[in-house]
């Protein structure tokens, strides 16, 4: 009697397994690929997946959607949110047309055979850094030995950057103590004193920490000089790229234009973000500071236009990721991206 329940239990558990966490298992037929421009007056509906949750850093997308940049490009963009792993899979499978993902994640995904392509950069300067109180943050990565570091987990650009930093200092993860915060709440661990350093976006965590009080002014250890990696950007599925290149280009240009508009007039970007991020109103000052710091990272050193992909940066990043063992090099870097924003 009770063992008759066992196969049912197996079936149930594996069915539950089959349903986690990649959402929407329903096989959508590949999105209708119309290579020609949409009929006049009719907007092409597309789905954009931004990261884990709404954030002021996504201001260009909010502005582009609200102020008609996308509409002018013939697009009606629906914005949704998804976690990193799910996002890449949904975009690769064509269930969403566009997404924002880490370049290093794209390298791993493409090497695993997931058909997703990086088409434009959001940041010209790599955002992830190690953050800590002044005096705790070493200037030389080799001095990281023996420290406790908080990070969301053993995945994502924060993890890749951390390992790249350690490697640059001749260290591995065994030379430090890692505390994981899978809910992305490593700031809480830092405030509780459980960790000395945390990984984070240098346009975000330090500003939020400073808002906690003067005791939380922070220093940073950035990777740009030490281990250059490409930052987050827009990704699309291979099938869409092959079938409707002009759509991809239109989206990328509209986004870049909106990004430029935010740089010129941050208040407009802030206002657009306020419409999309429910908790923004609670602390507009911090949100503004984060947006301004983000703009700095978008522009980087100004060598490339916004949205452009830097091939040299990809080569060096590729070598680093390969050296760390995240990828085996079977897929070449230039097979991983396709520049939707021309450099000429």
């Amino acid at each position, binding site marked *: 009697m*009770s*063992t*008759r329940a*066992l*196969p*049912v*239990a*197996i*079936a149930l*558990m*594996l069915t539950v*397994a*089959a349903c*986690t*966490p*990649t959402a929407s*298992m329903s*096989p959508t037929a590949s999105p209708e690929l119309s290579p020609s421009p949409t009929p006049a007056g009719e907007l092409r509906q597309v789905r954009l997946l931004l990261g884990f949750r709404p954030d002021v850093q996504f201001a260009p997308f909010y502005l582009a959607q609200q102020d008609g940049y996308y509409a002018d490009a013939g697009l009606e963009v629906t914005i949704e949110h998804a*976690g*990193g*792993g*799910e996002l*890449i*899979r949904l975009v*690769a*499978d064509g269930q969403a047309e566009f997404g924002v993902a880490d370049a290093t*994640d794209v390298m*791993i*995904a493409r090497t*695993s*055979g*997931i*058909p997703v392509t990086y088409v434009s950069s959001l940041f010209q300067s790599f955002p992830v850094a190690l953050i800590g109180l002044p005096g705790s943050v070493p200037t030389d990565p080799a001095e990281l030995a023996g420290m406790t570091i908080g990070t969301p*987990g*053993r*995945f*994502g650009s924060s*993890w890749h950057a951390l390992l790249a930093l350690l490697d640059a200092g001749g260290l591995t993860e065994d030379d430090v103590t*890692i*505390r*994981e*915060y*899978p*809910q992305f*709440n490593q700031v*809480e*661990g830092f405030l*509780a004193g*459980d960790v000395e350093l945390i990984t984070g976006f240098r346009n975000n965590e330090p500003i939020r920490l400073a808002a906690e009080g003067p005791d939380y002014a922070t220093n940073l250890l950035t990777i740009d000089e030490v281990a250059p990696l490409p930052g987050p950007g827009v990704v699309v599925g291979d099938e869409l790229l092959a079938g409707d290149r002009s759509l991809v280009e239109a989206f990328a240009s509209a986004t870049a234009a909106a990004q430029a508009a935010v740089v010129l007039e941050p208040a407009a970007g802030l206002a657009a973000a306020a419409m999309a991020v429910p908790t923004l109103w609670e602390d507009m000052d911090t949100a503004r500071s984060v947006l301004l710091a983000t703009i700095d990272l978008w522009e980087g050193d100004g060598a490339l236009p916004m949205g452009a992909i830097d091939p040299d940066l990809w080569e060096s990043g590729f070598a680093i990721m390969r050296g760390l063992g995240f990828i085996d090099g079977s897929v070449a870097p230039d097979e991983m991206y396709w520049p939707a924003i021309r450099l000429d």
Partner: protein
Amino acid sequence: MTILRRLAFIALSAFAFLAAWKVIVLIGGYPEYILPAPDVVALRAVEAIRNGTLQPHLVATLEESVIGFAVGALVAVAAGILLAKSLTAERVLSPYLVAAQAIPILALAPLIDIWFGGGLTARVVICALIVFFPIAIATMVGIRSTDPLLVEMARAYGARPGQITRLLELPSALPVLFGGLRVGVTLAVIGAVVAEWAGASIGLGVLINIADQGLFDTPLMFVALASLAVLGLTFYGLVLVAERLLIPR
């Protein structure tokens, strides 16, 4: 049914399930990174075991769930006895217990992890919390349903309260108690995973995250899920065996 026929039945239905899974993947044309077929998962499992990827995570989750279950069950049985015997205790404590149960532990787990300084202790606490409620309630109900006629008989022959609990109430509560243990032991596996998601660096829950978000290796994620299923089934089977041994039929 003889043991052999039972095993054959189980094997047959498991096979049918796997076949149906394969058919769904074929018909739906799902890519491997969305829904891998069972043979792909099996091959990935063999590979993961061969290069030693799976074992450390499996052992970690096993450790957390076994200790978490043991701690949670012991506290729950004691609490269940207290609640059964003391009307005051039940009146005072039940609202808190029920309210605590209604709050999803997934939300509290990160806080608990920080309070207990991370590490195995924190994970055992989270796991024990998840396991606690069904076992405590089952114990309480089981003991409350002791036949009062038997209690009167035992008292007529001089049974003291401790003897009544030990010789009468607990044995008579065993069937209901084991019902709670069956539920609790499968929750222990879930509890261990929830605890790992709150901040662990090793375990099947961590492997799920690494496979899903770090490596985009969906087959490996399914290997982790299947391992959890096997773990749950094994625990459940052990409770059944214990039930057969302890409850004379």
